[in-house]
């Protein structure tokens, strides 16, 4: 299922507006609410991570993920059963550039608090370092390749699922993925050669 810009745009607040924070519930039927709840539980983390890997800070991704689900809530009747994940991914991918533009205080890198909870500080630091490198490389890639790579290598989509989410033929998805992997590896190797990794 492909998501047109119009379908995604309608109902999305301007990135500069604060997220809906009134606590007022959506006025949807109980059946629709149940469906939305299942979608939310199933795919919130995926949507959030997609936004993160498309250049948003954690805080911006929080707002962005909420907006994606707001869009989904308004478009529930348009979303075929079984295509919820594809819809949400497509919405997140389309919204990410707008959300990036609208945020004045984009944070370039994650910042860990002083405490590292139950995990060792070394482990937490290592994850942070890897994630920063991952995001740096991803940000340099062409959007099409980046998205194909993120969906498969990070979110576990099959090529068919990538094709469905992006509205492209499966062969195109496969080709993008192959090129994306090559591109990523090449960039990673360059970073490592320069000592930047």
């Amino acid at each position, binding site marked *: 299922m492909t998501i047109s810009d119009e379908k995604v745009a309608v109902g999305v607040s301007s990135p500069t507006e604060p997220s809906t924070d009134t606590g007022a519930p959506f006025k949807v039927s109980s059946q629709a609410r149940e469906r939305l709840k299942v979608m939310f539980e*199933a795919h919130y*983390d995926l949507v959030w991570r997609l936004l993160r890997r498309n250049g948003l800070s954690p805080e911006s991704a929080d707002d962005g993920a*909420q907006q994606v689900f707001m869009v989904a809530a308004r478009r529930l009747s348009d979303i075929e059963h079984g295509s919820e994940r594809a819809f949400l991914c497509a919405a997140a991918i389309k919204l990410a550039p707008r959300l990036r533009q609208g945020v004045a205080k984009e944070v370039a890198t994650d910042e860990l608090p002083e405490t590292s*909870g139950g*995990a060792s500080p070394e482990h937490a630091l290592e994850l942070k370092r*890897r994630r920063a490198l991952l995001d740096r490389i991803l940000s340099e890639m062409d959007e099409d390749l980046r998205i194909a790579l993120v969906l498969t290598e990070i979110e*576990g989509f099959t090529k068919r699922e990538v094709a469905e989410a992006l509205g492209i033929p499966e062969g195109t998805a496969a080709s993008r993925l192959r090129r994306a*992997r090559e591109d990523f590896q090449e960039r990673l190797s360059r970073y*490592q050669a320069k000592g930047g990794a």
Partner: protein
Amino acid sequence: MSDEPKLDSMESLFSAGKAELPAAAAKAKAASALGIGGAAAVGAAGAGTAGALKLIGVVAVAAAAFGGGLWVGDHRARAELKPQLSAPLSAPPPTPHEEPPPPPEQAETPPPAAPIEPQPPPTTEAAPKSKPATRSTPGESADALTQELAAIDRARMALRNGDAALTLKTLAEYERAFPQGVMKTEAALVRIEAMVASGDRASAEKEATRLLSSGAPQLVQQRVQRLLDAK
């Protein structure tokens, strides 16, 4: 002596990306804004001290259910979990460990070494904490959860790679290592999926029945049904 830089592989970077989790509070806020804040908000921080590990399990199941992997490496997820992990996990069990010393004829089992003597709990801690036998400190609890999540993630990866046999083997190892694990429900779901994928429908249905008869919540029931309906 030069410092050999550690060379990252693509896979290690992807794993780090996969391991990142949104903050539970933000998720709960979004759920509330959408009007679905009941069950969806159950993973949020501040849910109270009682049943903290069960809370972690709910967050973990909800987050890991769709192959995103789960890792307690995200700073905000861990920061959210930390209050629960460090707080007393539950009220002491209703044992008479705070009662005055029992009369001599009842003192045979607990050594009356002190006026307030905790009954021997499942764990070795003297403090009145009630927690699974595999975890005795908050730090160990978080480490064990991290290991559980990693095991489930490995099983899911094997399944994605089409190796149902390896998936089931990984899950069997998980069960042995974590008999009281908080990810047991997720493990069962992955097991059902692997059984369906390998064509062993009878086992999948048996596993599904076992899971559903344990009082699984509605979301889990729906997931089970979707797995069984899959080709």
